[in-house]
């Protein structure tokens, strides 16, 4: 990959490297601002890159650095040695993940909740510290000169890589589109009162009016209140005199487009004291009368005293 230095920075290698160190810190600061201010997801996804690579690259420089000019190794520095992409970028990514891991574990130890803000501050702060330490190390000559990033990469190469990435992503998207997504159509009936869920028997007097609330939800189906029928059985025997209240059908504004129908039945408790099982069956229907999969009955207990 050909690189051309900014001409105005070429006057001092140290200035070029210093500005090269500032650029990633600037990107880091911008990324942190985007995340903390809850910018759109597309921007925040891009902001991940500096937050991963800056601490990772700084840690990689501390670990690997560059060969010192005064090294005792007799082998001359080769192109491989100066520019080992197989080691540099992947290791920077992996060490960036190590920094993220350490940040999350550190926050947990300090009992600080893991949030976007706390993670951003911790990761960015760590990145700044690591970058400064690597800069100090370089000044002291502990590690050799790193290549500054104040250069202009080969735009054609990066453009080709970006285009290839778009093609590959597009092929994956196309493959996802051609796969059928099974469209399930079903209904769900649930008791709405709290006593059945607490295993608390509904205690009533003989011939007392009892109200049982329920909710019917339709997934992938439309519900028609007018055509929905309700039946009640007590200990297996149908109850004729039942009054049914049906609310309007509400549809959630969500991808699943769930339709919901709330209702209630009111019946008269048996005259004879004892424990009874009440079975409630709601048979749904769509507004145009097409068959909707029935959910089956729900049951609750009644204690008549």
């Amino acid at each position, binding site marked *: *990959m050909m690189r051309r230095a900014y001409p105005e920075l070429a006057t001092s290698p140290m200035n070029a490297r210093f500005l090269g160190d500032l650029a990633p810190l600037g990107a880091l600061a911008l990324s942190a601002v985007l995340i903390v201010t809850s910018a*759109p997801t597309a921007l925040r996804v891009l*902001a*991940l890159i500096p937050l991963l690579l800056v601490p990772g690259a700084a*840690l*990689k420089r501390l*670990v*690997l*650095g560059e060969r*010192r000019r005064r090294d*005792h*190794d007799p*082998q001359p*520095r*080769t192109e*491989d*040695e100066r520019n080992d992409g*197989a*080691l540099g970028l992947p*290791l920077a990514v*992996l*060490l960036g*993940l190590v920094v*993220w*891991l350490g940040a*999350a574990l550190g926050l*947990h130890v300090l009992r600080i909740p*893991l949030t*976007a803000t706390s*993670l951003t501050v911790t*990761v960015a702060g760590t990145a700044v510290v690591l970058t400064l330490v690597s800069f100090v190390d370089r000044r002291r000559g*502990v590690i050799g000169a790193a290549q500054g990033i104040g250069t202009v990469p080969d735009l054609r190469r990066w453009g*080709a*890589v970006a285009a290839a990435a778009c093609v*590959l992503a597009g*092929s*994956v998207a196309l*493959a*996802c589109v*051609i*796969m*059928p997504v*099974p469209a399930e159509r*079903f*209904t*769900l*009936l*649930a*008791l709405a009162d709290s006593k*059945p*869920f607490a*295993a608390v028997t509904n205690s009533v007097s003989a011939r007392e009016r009892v109200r049982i609330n329920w909710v019917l*939800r339709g997934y992938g189906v439309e519900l028609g209140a007018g055509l929905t029928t309700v039946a009640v059985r007590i200990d297996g025997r149908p109850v004729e005199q039942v009054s049914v209240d049906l609310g309007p059908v509400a549809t959630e504004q969500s991808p699943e487009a769930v339709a919901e129908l709330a209702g209630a039945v009111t019946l008269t408790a048996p005259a004879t004291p004892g424990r009874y*099982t009440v079975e409630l069956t709601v048979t749904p229907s769509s507004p145009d009368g097409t068959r909707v*999969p*029935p959910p089956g*009955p*729900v*049951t609750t*207990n009644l204690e008549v005293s």
Partner: protein
Amino acid sequence: MTSLLTRPPQPSDDWLAGASSTRVGRSIGPSTPTAGWPRSPRPSWPWVIAAAAVGTVVIGCSYRLSALGASADLYYLVFWIGMFVALLPAGAKVVAGHVSRTDQLLGIMLFGWLTAVPKFLRNPTGPRYHDEYAHWRQAVDVLASGQLFEPNAVIPIVQFFPGTAALTVTTSSLSGLSVWSAGVVVVLVAHIAGLFAVYVATRSLLDSRRGGGIAAIVYGINPSAIYFDTQYAYESVAMAFFLWTVALTALAGQPVSPGRRRRLLLAATMTAAGVVVTHHLSTVFLIAILGVVAATVTLCRLVARYRGDSEPRYPVAVWWTTLTATVTLGTLWVGFFARPTLVYLSPYFGSSVDQLSSMADTDGDGGRELMSANVQPFAEQLVTAAAPATLAVLVVVVAVLVVRRRVRPNPAVWGLMVFGCAYFVSLPFLLAPSGAEGARRSWGFTYLGIAVLVALVALHWPAAAWRPGPAWRKVLAVSVFGTLLVGNVGGGLNDPYRFPGPFRWGTDTNSASDEARAVAEVFHARVGRVSVVTNAYTGLAMTAYGGAFAAAPSPGFPAWLLTQSGEDPPKELAAMLVSSDYDYLVVDIRMGEEVPFNGHNYGQGDPLLGQATPMNFLTRLDTVSWAARVITTEHLRVYRLDLRSIATRPQGRP
């Protein structure tokens, strides 16, 4: 640029290799190990990318066919056409004779992307594999609470290895991506980074870029790579740290300055720490591989000293250093944060060895039949059996090369190959019911050694006298690649894991439904996070989407008797259920309509193994006094249990 593989042998000018590597890849015989490879025409990048895109779409077509219920022979064939179209050009880009370093590295990145595509397309929008439910739920809970170490109902041990959840939550929090999308990104990055680790390690150990590329390709098609280690789970993430720990230690063993060696070992320690906090089994295998290599390197040094050869000291120290650091970190982590790990891991090895022993003593009954109840095409089954045989042949070739002194691998290479041979030791364990899983899980780790071995063979193919011509060499290379690719994938996960399909009761993947998810979500909204008794498949939805804690039935806690028996539960079971607050039973009536694909509804202790639950066992629940159906759909029923009367019944009364 002169290829490293065609110039005459000389001390390497790659700064990563040094004196020790002159032993590696350097033939003592008359011909060089690098001479004779053809100037392979490079596939151009536009063709490689086009092939990758077409192959990806063809794989999607195979999934479409399987989802629509087409013949297994058809969709398997389409799948493999897509895989070969995508992978062959990318692989050629990595191992071609005159490819530039940048092209090679981009080729590795592309190969990593392509080997992650099949799993991504399998379930792009949410968890579908058993472990994915566990880790997705874990990340959701950590994100909600802001704290790591949340309890996990699907795989309890996940609580104590927070690496995957930590990285996922960090990615999700920073980017705004959903938990699932963030997890997919983390796994993809880890997968690709892992291939680079294999490349770096092998390149330095064999002193060959091409060798590194070959090893990366071979590792990229290991039996765990294409589905298991690209699922959203802790092994997928830990694998990258595992591979880089080995790679960094291998680099530290090269002739570098003491300061640089210390820094490399420090980096290796950091990545080892990443393994330790992410996955228990990866930690075990990391200790194993470091131990084997350290022991091998030490043994080689002792032999060399006995013979009077002079060997530099550092190859021994670096491996022992990383091993010691890993053992220390692992011990501290398990000791202070993850004690249940010991209990979790101990049953598997012992019981599988016992099972193998009992099979050997008797006539083998009780074991598993390899590839039983399999819809795999017969051709794929044949190739699955051929893959280990192919590798065995390559092991023999290495032995021949060493005996004829055409190659003298350095001690670290020896150690990795010895570790890789554990792959062959694991194969008999496929026959033991509780050993099969362990055997499969080992392949992602031992295949690092296999990859190095294959690269060694490829670089040092025997003498010109019987070396095939260029065209036949290509045929041989593609054949070996194809055998390993098809055989490894075929020997990995079963059909429901690999391919989408119509609803099939009794599979972790194709028993999932929106219906179960809806029940779980409504249930959670109604009662919160509670304990439930349910079968293994509905349990995944209830725990992942409902936050429920599903019972783990066992002979000592036979919760399965609520549905797998036509009688009321015994008093003791009722008492356990009441005291442990298991107040709900969730039933899917399809348990009564089909025999479960996996052979059980409640694990291997299910009293009705291999049978569908009699429908009257399920329908009677609507008539018993201790269960009331409170939520219902066409197939699922949620019963509120009230077992107090049974639990407190005086002894002797029915």
